[in-house]
């Protein structure tokens, strides 16, 4: 429990001190009542669970043609867009609030949909079923997620076009999550394995919303620690976060348990400015940033690009060109894990050179890697706009014929594919990229001040990083509109 003992030296985040944030729960008492209800998470997961079930089924028994199958259209067009362009930037990990994947795992551990069981399980005051093993210390990072995500993405050309593959992958994730909940404590699957979780954690740190304690002193004096240990009102934090000191969005799955368990009503849902959390804790997080950036570039070339050869390489299961696939995979992995980080390292080195700082290049590299968050997130949003604007009309047709079997439930099955203002998306993408660049530089300066202390040095140290951000932005600009 040393995690809890360390709580005395907490720093209050800048934005809280300024009192700039608005607590949505104070502003909207109804919202507070809803979130505090024990049944809240269950009720919001339930419809998703149903859709999830339909999607898995559709992938298996429905049409193998991706754009005629709800599994592909709903997951890779609708869900993906909502996730990356709306949920993550504005509402942090709100997807995790409603995600159906851990449903059966939670159910197993709690043996209840809603009810709370008191008891004793390790430090928890709840009775939890299963083995409740501790997750191994050396895996307490997001490296598995990094590698898992990169692996999945290597097969993305297959994943996003074959309903069957999408179903199998989702099904396996559900199964793995459930099995893991029987062995390891709480949401070990979510925290360390779920491939979606990695980028949700990284990018949600930029979100304009946060769930936090309201008053530090109340937490310091609090004996109950219900948020962490659970009590009769709810379960201890399934993500093992302790609200009394939590400073970042990254690993809070917004499950709303702590809202219920905190006996002092000391938790608020704040709005805040974009990208206001500027801390990268470890190399695992830095690399997540590199992987995401490299993938956004790779997809811009492979999926949104025009070159048929690369498409055939990525699509080896159909073309049989496994040699090409190997080249493509090798390029993808080496750029994500080595080349992009190496380029960034070079810029970090320049930063040290210019500032003549005594800080190690590694430290500069890691701290500055925060700029990958706004840069990458906005690039991903810019990348995702064409997906929904160009292929969004499939949502209309597939909703009437989810399995591609010739049904016409709502009379919209015949709706022809019709891109929406495709020739103006470039303007939107330009503005999005500029936004990412702007945040990368302005937040980069804040980060730089943390590294170099005095303002002049901070600005000098920022210059190479601004150069990196500029190059990345120009690259995306060329992919999108050049």
């Amino acid at each position: 429990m040393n995690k809890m003992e360390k709580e005395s030296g907490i720093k209050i985040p800048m934005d809280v001190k300024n009192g700039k944030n608005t607590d949505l729960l104070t502003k909207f008492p109804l919202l507070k009542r809803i979130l505090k209800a024990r049944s809240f998470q269950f009720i919001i997961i339930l419809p998703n669970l149903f859709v999830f079930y339909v999607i898995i089924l559709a992938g298996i028994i429905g049409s193998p043609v991706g754009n005629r199958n709800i599994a592909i259209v709903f997951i890779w067009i609708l869900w993906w867009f909502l996730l990356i362009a709306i949920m993550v930037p504005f509402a942090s990990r709100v997807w995790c609030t409603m995600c159906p994947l851990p449903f059966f795992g939670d159910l197993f551990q709690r043996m209840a949909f809603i009810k709370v069981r008191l008891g004793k399980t390790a430090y928890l005051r709840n009775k939890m079923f299963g083995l409740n093993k501790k997750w191994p210390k050396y895996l307490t990072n997001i490296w598995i997620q990094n590698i898992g995500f990169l692996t999945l993405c290597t097969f993305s050309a297959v994943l996003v076009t074959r309903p069957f593959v999408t179903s199998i992958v989702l099904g396996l994730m559900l199964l793995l999550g459930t099995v893991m909940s029987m062995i390891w404590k709480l949401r070990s699957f979510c925290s360390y394995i779920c491939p979606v979780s990695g980028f949700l954690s990284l990018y949600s740190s930029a979100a304009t919303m946060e769930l936090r304690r309201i008053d530090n002193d109340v937490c310091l004096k609090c004996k109950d620690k219900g948020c962490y240990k659970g009590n009769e009102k709810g379960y201890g934090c399934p993500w093992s976060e302790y609200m009394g000191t939590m400073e970042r969005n990254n690993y809070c799955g917004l499950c709303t348990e702590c809202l219920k368990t905190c006996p002092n009503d000391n938790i608020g849902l704040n709005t805040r400015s974009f990208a206001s959390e500027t801390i990268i804790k470890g190399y695992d997080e830095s690399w997540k940033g590199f992987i995401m950036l490299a993938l956004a570039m790779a997809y811009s070339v492979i999926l949104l690009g025009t070159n048929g050869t690369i498409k055939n390489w990525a699509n080896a299961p159909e073309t049989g060109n496994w040699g090409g696939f190997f080249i493509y995979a090798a390029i993808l992995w080496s750029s994500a894990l080595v080349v992009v980080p190496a380029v960034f390292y070079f810029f970090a080195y320049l930063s040290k050179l210019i500032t003549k700082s005594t800080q190690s290049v590694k430290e500069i590299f890691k701290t500055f890697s925060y700029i990958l968050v706004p840069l990458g997130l906005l690039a991903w949003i810019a990348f995702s706009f064409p997906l929904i604007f160009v292929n969004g009309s499939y949502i209309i047709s597939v909703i009437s014929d989810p399995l591609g079997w010739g049904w016409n439930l709502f009379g919209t099955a015949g709706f022809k594919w019709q891109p929406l203002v495709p020739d103006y998306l470039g303007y939107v993408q330009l503005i999005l990229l500029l936004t990412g660049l702007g945040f990368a530089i302005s937040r980069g300066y804040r980060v730089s001040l943390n590294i170099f202390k005095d303002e002049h040095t901070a600005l000098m140290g920022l210059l190479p990083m601004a150069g990196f951000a500029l190059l990345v932005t120009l690259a995306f600009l060329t992919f999108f509109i050049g």
Partner: protein
Amino acid sequence: MKNMNIKKVVIIITITLTGALAGILYFNSSAKPIRRDIVIKARQYSYEPNRMEVNVGDTLYIKLLALDVMHGFYLEGYDIDAEIPANLSNFKVRKPSDGFNWKDTNEIVIIVTRGGKFRYRCSHTCGTMHPFMQGEMIVHPNHLFNGGVGAVIGFVFGLLWLIYKKNKKGHDNE
């Protein structure tokens, strides 16, 4: 405080737009309009040529061929959608703005009026990678891209300059 922020925003926007303008003017090109005869071959899952560069004012005479299965040809920004049966020189074409009035033809004629990047996409489901089958027509001068590059560079300089000014001011006050 508020006024300061507004002033900053105005400065940034001005510098960014100046950059955009500089980009547009610097890369501006005016080629003499010509006639171009183009044959576009569609094959799972790309077009050949996959990228064509033309100039504003050009007249394009486009023939479409599908070499394996039936493909489509939906050209952004020019209100053209075609369905190309495999291995035939004739194909069907329509104006999407005008519904489903398909016409049989063996050539599309386009007078290029707008600069920019316009993608042509397959509009007829042709296999697994169909949703990603596309080519691009770059029409010079591509003001959006040229201006975009200028804007991005201007924006970076603007931001850095503002930070520099702010630091200086902070020191002067000390």
